[in-house]
């Protein structure tokens, strides 16, 4: 809290430095869950920080700035994903089935399975699940952030978890 308080009245550069130190990693991870690509996630969050810097005069408050960053990361991840979907369709058409190659560990395999499953969810389902369970946002916060009703949030969440359970099959039964 004191770290945050020290930001009040700070200039935009300082705000960026401090918020970067405190939140860069988590924001990139959030975006990576949504866009399935680390470099793209870093781009998205970098852009969000640059935008936050430019908007600092209207934020002037670290709490608001963090809320702004999270919202910007969610919005920009969606745009990044849509942009890439077009590119990926072309790639997939030309090069068939090259999956992610990862280490042989069980953990690695399970992570791959979860990543693959997340990709197969609808955009909304994925967003709702990630915001609900990774950021621990309330249904109301999610509804607000995504511009949908709370009922829709509930529906996406329950369909999303059901789909995830189906897709993960054995992993779901035995998460060890």
């Amino acid at each position, binding site marked *: 809290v004191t770290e945050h308080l020290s930001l009040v009245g700070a200039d935009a550069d300082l705000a*960026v430095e401090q918020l970067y130190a405190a939140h860069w990693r988590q924001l990139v991870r959030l975006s990576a869950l949504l866009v399935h690509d680390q470099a793209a996630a870093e781009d998205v*969050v970098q852009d969000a920080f640059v935008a936050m810097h*430019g908007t600092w005069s209207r934020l002037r408050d670290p709490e608001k700035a963090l809320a*702004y960053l999270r919202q910007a990361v969610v919005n920009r991840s969606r745009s990044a994903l849509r942009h890439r979907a077009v590119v990926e369709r072309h790639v997939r058409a030309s090069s068939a089935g090259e999956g992610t190659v990862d280490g042989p560990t069980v953990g690695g395999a399970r992570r791959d399975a979860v990543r693959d499953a997340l990709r197969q969810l609808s955009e909304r389902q994925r967003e709702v699940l990630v915001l609900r369970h*990774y950021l621990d946002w309330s249904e109301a916060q999610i509804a607000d*952030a995504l511009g949908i009703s709370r009922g829709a949030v509930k529906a996406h969440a329950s369909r999303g*978890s059901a789909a995830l359970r189906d897709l993960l099959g054995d992993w779901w039964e035995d998460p060890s």
Partner: protein
Amino acid sequence: MNDQLIRDLLHEVADDVEPEDRLDAIRAATAPTRGRTHRGWWVAGGAGLVAASVVTAFALGTGGAPQSQDPGPAEQSTSAPTPDGTDQAAPDESLDERTQKLEEMRRFADGVRAVYYIGDTPEGPRLYREFLTLDKDDTLSVAVAAALRTTTDGRPLPADDHDPDYRVVWPALTRASAEMSSTGDEIEVSMGGDPQSDLRSRGDLSPEEAQLAVEALVRTAQAAVGERLPVRFFVFGEPVDTLLGVATSGPVTAGPDLDVLAHVSLSDPFEGQVADNDEPFVVRGAASSTDGTVTTRIQRREGTFVIGQKVARLTDDATGLVPFTSTFDLSDAPTGDYDVISEVRTPTGTLTTDTRRITVID
């Protein structure tokens, strides 16, 4: 159970990501990209807005947006009969008028457009214009985004050359783009970025500010296409019945100039302009004043010493703002920072001003 499992799995996947350091890249992208060149507006990354080194008012008679019965961008409402001994509003009428029309056409072709922002007057908030040079490939969207102080891809515009007296009251993440309707007789403005509830409701804004925020987009879009077409609003792709609490279920048209616009608005100089004291210094703008005159003074930023004052006579136009020009000789002005202040008297007897900061060089 279920939820906890999903939480664990998401964290497991996320924690596997070890982000690379981008702090230097962020610092580089947020560092001032230029010295104080006072060349006008630049957008790092070339997102559509380019330098406005010189700007001239066009279609001043309608407050920046040419009227729909005047299809051409350069059309202007009736111009001034030459007035008397005060500084001329339109010297050498016919020639001046023709020159100005040509100049307006050239500027319009160059992508110069009026973009509207909220500023304060003694009468309450009103709209002021800034003339910006916009990307000609997508002038409409770039203009509407610039009215939110963003680029078309949602990045904030640099604050440096923006007139600090003007403001944008939309929620911080708001984005906008615009296109002509398929029928070509309406402009479609699409909003997004912020939570829908924030875009739809008025929040902390006064009813006046909310109304003006919507009006600013309408007028900016109209000025961008050079026609006073009705504007239809969308939020996240869907038609929207209220924006900031303002009814937008049908097509929205611009309000009456005198109710909406600040009664004086400068188009030259632009904020931060550098003026060579060897050259005549021309102040242009649009105004409406109950005493029929607009007074412009140039004063030193420090000490407020006035180095010059001119009075321009306005032609009668009960319905809107009319153009005015005042020319100053700065040859005796010491180099330094100055304020250019144009002032008119409003129907309630108060004085409304528009101010630009300039730097005089030798």
